[in-house]
């Protein structure tokens, strides 16, 4: 069985995280992705270990491996005319061109939408910006910390009232944005089947964040007032809140409609007297006396380790969840049972674990066929496939257009 995107060819002129992550999904789904990188070190994520994010050294760049598996790497110095010509030749045979370079860079390299669409009307041109293609800030470089997390309101609304905003994790917004990009490219490819026409699909880190925070943003659009931050200690529904268990680990109660669960919940925590308590016995009562109930529950949950609470809550039909760390994921049996993780053979490291693309297809399964390429590993192979000769390659090398 082949992947859903089998036969689709992608030229990726992109760096950092969001667009490479989207094309990693496309590649897992069967597309052939050629990643174009500059000769000055290539995609900066190759050098991630030196950016002060991880307090340890690894001989490979974990995020680069995640977002560039299944791709071939071609090094081209896009400032050189030979390199630009080569990209045009690649695009001529491609279905998708994917980029997150800044607009003026794309024009300088001769690969802006208008230039490629004029020559290749069936091409899907996928682009990503920080703040959108229009407006005063259309050229402002965007990273997910700024354009996605900070600007969209997510950062501003997380955290306790009066506390500092909550810092995101690296690439968090980029990876959610990768899902919108892959959707758009897939929908455009589907549309091309019927119309024969390609088009440009573009998204912005700010816009995907707004979609993500849609419920709060929608509230402001209509209510015209800002939403208050959630405080853990005084929530309106204490059964939609999290508590620290006796072993210091956190568990999350998730019963947004608390009424059907209340009786079972009181039994699970061994506090049957609360069930009919006039302060807490109704949804409205729990809402009004949220802080008091949270205080009781904090004290209750601190008495037993999390695993015991989990068993008791399960026995009484309550909905709850583990608060895990990334380190817990690898040992989570549910993760392996569902194939959320996969393995691949790395030429230098042996078998490495990677996150599978987050959908399972029943007849066109995703697959990781190779790990992330070395910088320029496939330059010669790909250029030769596209009609260049060894003599051309020597000339390119002399001119500095390839490594």
């Amino acid at each position, binding site marked *: 069985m082949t992947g859903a995107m089998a036969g689709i060819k992608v030229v990726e002129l992109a760096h950092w995280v969001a667009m490479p992550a989207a094309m990693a999904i496309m590649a897992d789904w069967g597309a052939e992705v050629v990643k174009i990188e500059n000769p000055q070190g290539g995609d900066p994520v190759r050098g991630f270990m030196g950016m002060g994010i991880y307090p340890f050294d690894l001989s490979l760049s974990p995020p680069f491996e995640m977002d560039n598996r299944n791709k071939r790497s071609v090094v081209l110095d896009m400032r050189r005319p030979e390199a630009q010509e080569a990209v045009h030749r690649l695009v001529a045979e491609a279905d998708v061109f994917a980029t997150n370079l800044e607009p003026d860079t794309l024009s300088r390299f001769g690969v802006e939408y208008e230039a490629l669409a004029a020559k290749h009307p069936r091409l899907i041109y996928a682009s990503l910006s920080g703040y959108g293609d229009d407006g005063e800030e259309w050229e402002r470089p965007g990273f997910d910390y700024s354009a996605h997390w900070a600007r969209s309101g997510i950062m501003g609304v997380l955290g306790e009232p009066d506390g500092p905003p909550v810092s995101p994790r690296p690439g968090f917004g980029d990876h959610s944005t990768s899902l919108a990009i892959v959707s758009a490219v897939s929908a455009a490819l*589907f549309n091309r089947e019927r119309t024969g026409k390609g088009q440009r699909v573009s998204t912005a880190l700010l*816009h995907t964040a707004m979609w993500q925070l849609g419920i709060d943003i929608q509230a402001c659009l209509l209510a015209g007032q800002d939403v208050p931050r959630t405080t853990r200690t005084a929530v309106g529904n204490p059964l939609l809140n999290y508590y620290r268990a006796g072993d210091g680990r956190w568990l999350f109660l998730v019963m947004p409609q608390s009424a059907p669960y209340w009786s079972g919940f009181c039994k699970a925590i061994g506090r049957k007297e609360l069930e009919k308590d006039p302060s807490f016995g109704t949804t409205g009562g729990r809402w009004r006396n949220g802080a008091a109930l949270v205080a009781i529950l904090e004290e209750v949950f601190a008495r037993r380790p999390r695993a015991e609470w989990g068993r008791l809550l399960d026995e009484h039909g309550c909905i709850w969840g583990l608060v895990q760390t*990334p380190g817990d994921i690898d040992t989570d049996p549910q993760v392996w049972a569902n194939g959320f993780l996969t393995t691949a053979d790395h030429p230098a490291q042996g078998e490495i674990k990677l996150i599978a693309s987050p959908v399972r297809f029943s007849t066109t399964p995703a697959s990781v066929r190779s790990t992330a390429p070395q910088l320029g590993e496939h330059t010669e192979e790909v250029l030769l496939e596209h009609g260049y000769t060894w003599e051309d390659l020597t000339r390119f090398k002399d001119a500095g257009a390839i490594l």
Partner: protein
Amino acid sequence: MSGALDGLRVLELGHWVAVPSACAILGDWGAEVVKVEDPVMGDPMRGLRSVDGVSVGEVNYWFEQVNRNKKGVALDLRYDSGKNVLRHLIQKSDVLVSNFKVAALERLGLPYDIVARLNPQIVYAVLTGFGREGQERDKPGYDYSAFWARGGAMSKMGEPDSAPPPQRPGMGDNVTSMLIAGAISAALVARGRTGVGQALDLSLFNTAVWMLGMDMMPALSAGIEIPNTERGKTRNPLWNTYRTGDGLWVQLVMIQSDRFWPAFCEAIGRPDLEQDPRFNNSLCREENCAELVSILEGVMTSRDCASWEEVFTRYQLIFGRVQTVIDVVTDPQATANSFFTQVPHPLCGELRLVASPVKFSGTPAEVSAPAPELGQHTEEVLLEVAGMTWDDLVRLKEEGAIP
């Protein structure tokens, strides 16, 4: 111009946020979405009165945001006649999307093999909390538990040793919605090649693992847990959050700090820092990070947020202001890029909504109708799509299968 998915019919058996939100994207892209709801209960989102104390008012905007552009059919699936109508609709649809529990779908006679027998071309997408395999396959999953808590994000946010921050309602659901839309579109592309549909298995948990990939990868490749971000001691002080003179916050995002250091020192009026041996390269800054953060905290309070924005823009530094949600809905950049859209609504005149987060150059997204009333289109859809007659409808009504 029509939408990318024009002419496709999507049958939604969804509730709460993730699947309705995915179908809102498909609807914006031109698909006809038929939302089937229980005639008495309906989607529980209809019953939300407030979130965190912000009242819904007359218009339930959370429901509106994820249910625009749909047709509403009320059908009681406890009746055989109701199930029969659904089978008719399945035969006439391209996509069936659900986040009902797997056991509930089986009870309704809708496991994939039966649906595929009714309609081999159908793309059948089911979202679970924790995956379709493993011990927890039947466990109900909400984004708070299955996405935020279980997926690792919650534990990684917030300062070390502090309580983890709460997330906002539907955030994980809305991320997952982009993936569901993408997976369905990809399966439609594959259908063009193979002629048959397939089953898609998605989960909130798996999507979260993808989103937190950059934290997962070191855990997977080296068994290393990255420490939580500590604002006061972040290893790269040029990638951190600072409070400005007017109490607002700015997120600096200069991941490659050496590149920006000279311009940054000039921008903050501290050219003396540039050659200061404690700070003059990224390794020194990392070693002396607490000291530098504390200097920068002092410097940043010397101006208000707007004036820092002006300075940082002039020096081409990468940063973002931390906005509140109300800032976002009045952000001119968001408006200039049509991140919002509007649609006439019977109760409030014009209803503003968050637009689906991709711009298509050839097949624009469109919102042409607000969320349907419960069962608003029951008769219309049963007559036009399921091929029923008025006599059939009368019989269904008498039985109670439709309202």
